[in-house]
């Protein structure tokens, strides 16, 4: 299980990174934390001519508050989302999801940007970008562009990132005192990809839930916004009837894959249970 030979480049700017990609005629892969890419290379599922290491690009580093928006550099490690005070304060949903991402040593190396760019439909962070309404800052040869999370995840492992483009940072609307959130997932073992998982970010006005954003993962080829369920709870207090209505509405939001290990009908069931648990958690969240 050894990767096919490749050349290695470590550009120190985005311009150099784009040049390296062009220089390889596009037969190149970008690597940041590499926690998903390296196994794929070892198994020869991918075999680029050139591996372009993004770790030395300054614009991709750091977490800072830009007014109402938290800018999370794509190279931010999973482990930093657990400890970084700005993330804990302004993207609490990300911090809540972080302990569920794989295992400690993977979190020490894996990056938020890498996870979002890979867009594994069973991963926590891509779905949380949806729940948080993040915007993706993407660099291409022609400059930067921004893509909203709702438009970012297109199909299985397919995002709005075009070949040669680089996810530079994630812009998350900073959560304020009115925001409440909840995260949960159901996995067979700690750190496994979840059978079903999800997160909610909302505002609370007294007992009433406002502007809820619910995102689930492991329920289809991409992370999924549960818009029908959101509509059931928006502007309401989370009583048992509301929660039940949201659970019923969820069925129309998701289209889970059917496989022998976890049949689609089971995922639908789990998603309903999960939503109920998330909403009850949200309700008790202060």
């Amino acid at each position, binding site marked *: *299980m*050894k*990767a*096919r*030979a*490749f*050349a*290695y*480049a*470590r*550009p*120190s700017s985005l311009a*150099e990174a784009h040049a*390296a990609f062009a*220089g390889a005629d596009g037969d190149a892969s970008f*690597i940041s934390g*590499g*926690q998903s890419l*390296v*196994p794929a*290379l*070892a*198994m020869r599922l991918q075999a680029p001519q*050139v*591996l372009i*290491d993004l*770790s030395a690009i300054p614009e991709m580093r750091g977490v800072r508050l830009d007014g109402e928006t938290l800018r999370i550099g794509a190279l931010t490690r999973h*482990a930093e989302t657990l400890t970084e005070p700005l993330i804990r304060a302004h993207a609490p949903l990300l911090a809540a999801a972080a302990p569920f991402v*794989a*295992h*400690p*040593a*993977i979190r*020490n*190396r894996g990056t938020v940007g890498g996870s979002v760019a890979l867009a594994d439909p069973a991963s926590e962070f891509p779905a949380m970008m949806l729940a948080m309404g993040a915007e993706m800052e993407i660099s291409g040869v022609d400059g930067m562009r921004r893509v909203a999370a709702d438009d970012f995840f297109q199909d299985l492992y397919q995002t709005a990132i075009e070949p040669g483009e680089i996810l530079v940072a994630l812009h998350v609307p900073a959560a304020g005192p009115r925001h409440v959130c909840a995260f949960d997932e159901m996995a067979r*073992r*700690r*750190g496994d990809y979840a059978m079903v998982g999800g997160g909610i970010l909302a505002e609370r006005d007294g007992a009433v839930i406002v502007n809820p954003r619910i995102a689930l993962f492991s329920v289809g080829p991409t992370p999924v916004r549960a818009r029908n369920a959101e509509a059931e709870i928006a502007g309401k207090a989370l009583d048992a009837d509301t929660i039940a209505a949201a659970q019923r509405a969820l069925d129309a939001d998701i289209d889970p894959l059917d496989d022998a290990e976890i049949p689609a009908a089971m995922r639908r069931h789990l998603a309903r249970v999960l939503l109920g648990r998330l909403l009850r958690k949200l309700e008790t969240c202060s």
Partner: protein
Amino acid sequence: MNMMAGTVPLSLTVNGEEVARMVAPRTTLADFLRTDLELTATHVGCEMGACGACLVLLDGVPVHSCLVFAVQAQGQSVETVEGLVASGALAPLQQAFHERNALQCGFCTPGMLVNAHALIARGSVPDREEIRDAISGNYCRCTGYEAIVDAIEAAARKANGEGAE
């Protein structure tokens, strides 16, 4: 920046010593340590980050050396079990693992020690659930984990608990 096929120069610090070698970019840090530097305490169990046998400290934090290419560690500092043993950093854990028989075949042990060392270095005495979480990615086929949890708990108490120096 540097882009070329074949081998590339690599310099890094391994167990406190400067190391300079030519290395093929596809060589993982695990294979580099084991083959080029003969530091075979770092074990390879799955080559996909699922077993934890290959954990080393990279700039002070545990990472899977099978999920890092050696070239990515350019200029960084790597500590392996050999180095941690030589410096005495692992002595309390070594003793606790031995006394509690927290290993059988020993193949998972280096990875367990690296994670346990990082956990204890946080400075508190973790509870058993925290210990289990810290080693949640470390596969052991032999022990059933309880003895390992016991040993880490004992070493943590000794290092950070009441009466610790």
